């Protein structure tokens, strides 16, 4: 399905990125940790959203659970970071499995809406849990050495992307795509849709939660507002959709580009960056509703007219 070139390049990129802490400066590492974690989130979202087409606004639930699982394990039980990550990941996966079974019965928009509500509910619940520091949050021990966080984030992204690579060429991935293309037909052809959807959600939760755990330890502070942040979830969606949902490298490329653009804006025009962020979303939806990969294919075929063809297709 995929040529050899992208793979070779991807490996090269990964090697270059792994070297950043040695030849880059602190800023690059800082930016890198954020960009890599965001790329991981977009890639995790891709597993469910890109392959099965189920638009989840509940991934921030798993991010929050990973965050809190790690934080609670480290602060209340003095467990090492590695164990904290596992705790966070297990909690998030359990939640994904338990919640996934009822809400993945919902199709399309209903599912998106239910997950949106789920995130609100989870934030509200956690902010009432004393063990999670209620609404105040938890302060984690401080660890110096951002290079470690950086390499961890990179490793996570690599593993997550390898997982997606495997999915894209496996029987498992065929099932997910079949569900996306037509769930009823897939069912009639022997695809156990519930099983595949729930496992995809659980896989997605796994990587999302670990990213949350890494972020928690790195930023040393978690609170419900930032752990269960719908905006973060929207960002995952935008990055994935921008890069190309259901592709292997699209979400990663999409999130790298958007992270870089946003970082430049945030430091150059500070306040107006938000406005720009909003405008970009609006314009992107109007002109490139099918994402970057479609944009590139479309632009190759028909140049700038591609943009207006999209409008013609979707307008009233």
């Amino acid at each position, binding site marked *: 399905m995929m040529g050899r070139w992208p793979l070779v390049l991807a490996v090269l990129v990964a090697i270059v990125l792994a070297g950043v802490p040695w030849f880059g400066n602190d800023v690059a590492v800082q930016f890198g940790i954020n960009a890599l974690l965001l790329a991981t989130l977009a890639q995790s979202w891709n597993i469910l959203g890109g392959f099965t087409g189920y638009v989840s606004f509940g991934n921030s639930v798993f991010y929050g659970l990973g965050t809190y699982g790690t934080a609670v394990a480290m602060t209340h039980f003095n467990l090492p970071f590695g164990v904290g990550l596992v705790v966070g990941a297990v909690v998030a996966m359990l939640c994904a499995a338990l919640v996934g079974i009822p809400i993945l019965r919902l199709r399309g928009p209903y599912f998106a809406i239910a997950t949106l509500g789920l995130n609100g509910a989870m934030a509200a619940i956690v902010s*009432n849990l004393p063990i999670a520091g209620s609404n105040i949050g938890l302060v984690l021990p401080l660890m110096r050495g951002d290079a470690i966080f950086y390499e961890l984030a990179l490793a996570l992204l690599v593993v997550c992307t390898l997982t997606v690579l495997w999915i894209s060429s496996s029987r498992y991935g065929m099932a997910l795509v079949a569900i996306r293309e037509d769930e009823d037909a897939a069912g009639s052809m022997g695809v156990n849709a519930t099983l595949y959807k729930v496992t995809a959600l659980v896989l997605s939760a796994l990587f999302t939660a670990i990213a949350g755990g890494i972020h928690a330890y790195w930023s040393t502070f978690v609170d419900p507002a930032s752990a269960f942040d719908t905006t973060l979830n929207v960002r995952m969606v935008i990055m994935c959709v921008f890069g190309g949902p259901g592709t292997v490298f699209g979400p990663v490329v999409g999130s790298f580009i958007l992270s870089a653009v946003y970082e430049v804006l945030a430091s150059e025009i500070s306040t107006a960056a938000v406005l720009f962020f909003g405008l970009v979303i609006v314009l992107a939806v109007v002109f490139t509703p099918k994402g970057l990969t479609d944009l590139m294919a479309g632009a190759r075929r028909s140049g700038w007219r591609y943009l207006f063809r999209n409008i013609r297709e979707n307008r*009233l």
Partner: protein
Amino acid sequence: MVLAQILLNGILLGGLYGLMALGMALVWGVLNIVNLAHGALIMLGGYVVYYIFVFTGLDPFAAIAVAMVIMFGVGFLLQYGLLNLIVRSALLNTLLITFGLDVVITYLAQFLFTADFRTINPSYAGANFSAFGLTVPGIRFAAFVVAIALAAALWWLLNRRPLGLAIRATSQNLVAARLYGVDPRILYAVTFGIGTALAGAAGGLYGMIANLTPYIGASLTAKSFVIAIIGGLTNPFNVILGGIVVGIAESLATLYFGATYSDVVSFGLLVLVLVVRPTRTLRAA
């Protein structure tokens, strides 16, 4: 007595909640757009009422009527100039674009109105009266009445006027609008305009009860969203009823569990309703 008063609080607040959700439910049900900028439009409406009140000295309730006309225009233009371009694309895209709109409107509001708190504070703002031993805050009572009246007006429009019939027909089938001799683009814009006007009214009433800041939008969107789902998208009175259910549930949660639990209750209700009876509440999308 405390319980009775708290129920009353919940019901009165619920009326306003319902009005907030009314516009969202209309736009959602007819245009199939889940408008995440709805709360921002409520906020905008609040500011419009505030400025009319402050600069012309017009009574806030009269100002709401004026603001509804202005907000109708805003909504009409938004739909006609922007949202009409994407209504036929996937739901995800309408979610994203309205999220983007929310960000833009909030930013512009903070730019134009500053982050200062604004309150629509007519002389009678704190007035109250007693009934059956309960204290009834005047403004909240009035807000409740306005909410019911607007729901009734919307019901009348949708069920008794040709325009309303055309709108309802459109929600079933896009081409149907043409049968009524209306350009669907205009019809969509009018529908969104009505939704925005209702948001404007809700914003004005909200501004008389609580402070306006440019940042209230997101939480109001979430609230409207919950209520639109609980109340359903088809009948305005059910939406108001949904608001009242949420208002009462939140008030009782505050009484029995503490005020920090009100969100647990409303979001919990949302998820429950969706999981238990998804198709009852929403039309097939």
